[in-house]
């Protein structure tokens, strides 16, 4: 089937009333949590995971995907108006966006952020649609050793790009793998690390784990600090960028789109890295790099475009290989598996409606977001006025109900609280939760691939090195590990990451 044929299949799914409604719900909730500080798309998707049990899988994924890319739109609002990024991917937008707001150009900054996001999001979907089918045909040649090596490479890239220590990030991936084996061993039926708790026989749930590590821990961290909520008192007006603004921004948007999309495909890359790199690119190509940080519209357009196209690019490894590129995609993978669907190369063949339906919903979702973010900007500004002492009890309460509804059991709620405290301490001690959650989701797939490979090779580990794709992935992983250990490269990596942190 050709490009447009696939698109038609997708739109026929997207335009079903239930899918359209949940797409709207997803992008609406996404924008809302993007605007609100203290709760991110990962926590929200985890909270809403139990809600998706009762709806068809395509509808569920359309909604969850909408939350993700919707949050990228919403995140820019707080960056521009209050100098607090709603999302990590909008951190860099603060630099010029807030300066524009101080100069009375908040409306144009918000406008270019929304239009840039829309253009990038749309190009991102086109890229996803064009790249996914050829990649599927490559992925069909993959066996267990290739999957094992590819996932290993993914972990190494993810931890290589970790903000803090690579050893700590790798350690967290190990902890995630360990948590992922809790429950009955699918091959032997033996319970593992269940401590005689019957509820743990099915394993630790993704929702309590993610809600705890991202939702509860965030609340615990925020309430010990005094959050200053400052809001511009001037009215936001003039949302449509002028011709001059367009002239200065259009190439920045296109460059940001390309950078974000390709970095989004990388494991661990995603929207955050995309926005930082695109800002750096703009600064480098600009004739006035010294003016960045003083209210340059390119400094808003490029990162906002990049974080949206990265959000679309991140779907490629998930939909084609079944391997999530970041923790948000790991939640989506978990959601698909809860519905009995294994993402990967067979997804396109076995569930074309889901595959093309989700992709097409992003076109519609992007259009909805444009409407939600421009005419309704006043609504989101009002939302920013809700003080955190009132907001956090509500977020906590939603987490508590959400975790209880998974199995109608307080064990899941207790697990969520436990992981919340663990997540709080992890962040205090500078351990990142993202590699843990990603490894947790991939753990069963990784174990199966390892065991099957060893059974295939009669116990020989050479199977991982003698097959070209598998061997290539492992060599690349080894090279990355070596470079992070070598002093001069390690120091350079630390310097780059430190610079990124300072920019934050």
């Amino acid at each position, binding site marked *: 089937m050709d490009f447009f044929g696939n698109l038609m299949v997708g739109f026929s799914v997207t335009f079903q009333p239930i899918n359209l409604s949940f797409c709207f719900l997803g992008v609406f909730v996404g924008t809302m949590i993007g605007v609100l500080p203290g709760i991110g798309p990962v926590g929200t998707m985890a909270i809403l995971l139990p809600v998706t049990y009762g709806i068809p899988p395509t509808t569920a994924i359309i909604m969850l995907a909408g939350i993700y890319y919707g949050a990228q739109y919403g995140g820019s609002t707080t960056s521009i108006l209050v100098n607090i990024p709603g999302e990590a991917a909008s951190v860099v937008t603060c630099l010029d966006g807030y300066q524009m707001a101080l100069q009375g150009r908040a409306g144009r900054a918000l406008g270019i952020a929304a239009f840039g996001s829309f253009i990038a999001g749309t190009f991102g979907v086109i890229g996803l649609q064009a790249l996914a089918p050829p990649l599927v045909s490559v992925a069909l040649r993959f066996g267990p050793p290739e999957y094992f090596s590819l996932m290993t490479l993914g972990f190494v890239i993810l931890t290589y790009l970790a903000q803090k*220590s690579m050893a700590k990030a*790798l*350690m967290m991936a*190990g902890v995630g793998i*360990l948590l992922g084996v809790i429950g009955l061993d699918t091959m*032997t039926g*033996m319970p593992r690390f269940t401590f005689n708790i019957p509820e743990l026989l099915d394993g630790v749930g993704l929702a309590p784990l993610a809600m705890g590590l991202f939702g509860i821990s965030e609340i615990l961290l925020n309430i*010990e600090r005094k959050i200053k909520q400052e809001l511009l008192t001037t009215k936001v007006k003039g949302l449509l960028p002028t011709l001059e603004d367009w002239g200065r921004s259009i190439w920045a948007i296109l460059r940001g789109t390309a950078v974000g999309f390709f970095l989004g495909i990388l494991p661990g890359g995603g929207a955050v890295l995309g926005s930082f790199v695109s800002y750096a690119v703009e600064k480098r190509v600009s004739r006035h790099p010294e003016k960045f940080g003083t209210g340059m519209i390119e400094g808003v357009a490029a990162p906002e475009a990049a974080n949206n196209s990265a959000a679309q690019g991140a779907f490629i490894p998930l939909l084609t290989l079944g391997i999530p590129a970041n923790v948000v995609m790991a939640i989506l993978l978990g959601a698909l598996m809860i519905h009995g669907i294994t993402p990967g190369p067979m997804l396109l063949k076995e569930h074309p409606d889901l595959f093309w339906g989700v992709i097409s919903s992003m076109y519609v979702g992007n259009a909805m977001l444009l409407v939600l973010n421009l005419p309704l900007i006043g609504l989101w500004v009002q939302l920013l006025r809700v003080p955190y002492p009132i907001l956090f009890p509500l977020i906590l309460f939603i987490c508590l109900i959400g975790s209880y509804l998974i199995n109608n059991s307080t064990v899941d709620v207790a697990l969520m609280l436990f992981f919340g405290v663990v997540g709080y301490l992890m962040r205090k001690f500078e351990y990142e939760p993202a590699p843990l959650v990603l490894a947790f989701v991939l753990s069963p797939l990784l*174990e199966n691939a390892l065991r099957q490979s060893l059974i295939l090779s009669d116990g020989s580990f050479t199977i991982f090195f003698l097959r070209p794709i598998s061997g290539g992935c492992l060599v690349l992983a080894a090279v990355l590990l070596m470079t992070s250990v070598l002093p001069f490269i390690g120091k350079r990596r630390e310097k780059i990451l430190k610079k990124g942190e300072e920019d934050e």
Partner: protein
Amino acid sequence: MKAERVGSLFWLAAGLISTYGSVQLGLGKFREPGSGFFPFLAGCFISLMAMIVFFQSFLRGREVQAKLSSLWEGLRWRRPIEIGLLTLGYILALERLGFLLTGFLLLFVILKGVERVSWGKAILIPVLTLGVSYLLFNVFLKATLPKGVFGF
């Protein structure tokens, strides 16, 4: 003690305990890995990384390393404990007192007791939140939320 070392020693202990637990599960053979094989590898890996972090902490300058107590310096550290304990209380009471009563008590105590908002807000916000949650989960999504001994 330095925070970095405390953290790495904790994870080292966790790694070693899980390695021991994996051996108890049975490692099997390479040609037929047992239930403990994969967690054994994970446990060893965690222990190795924890040791690297521990030894790295000696190589870094003293001045760049945070002390354990400094992680909570200047912060309102009692609040996370209060909220954690209140949430624990909510979990223990949920199935006995029911979703509406425990939900109200939790929100009211946080808003009035911890955050010191006005009486009006401390009552109105929980009532509205519970009303919307009841409609959404019980009525629209037909989810089963615990009723408790009072039947609501």
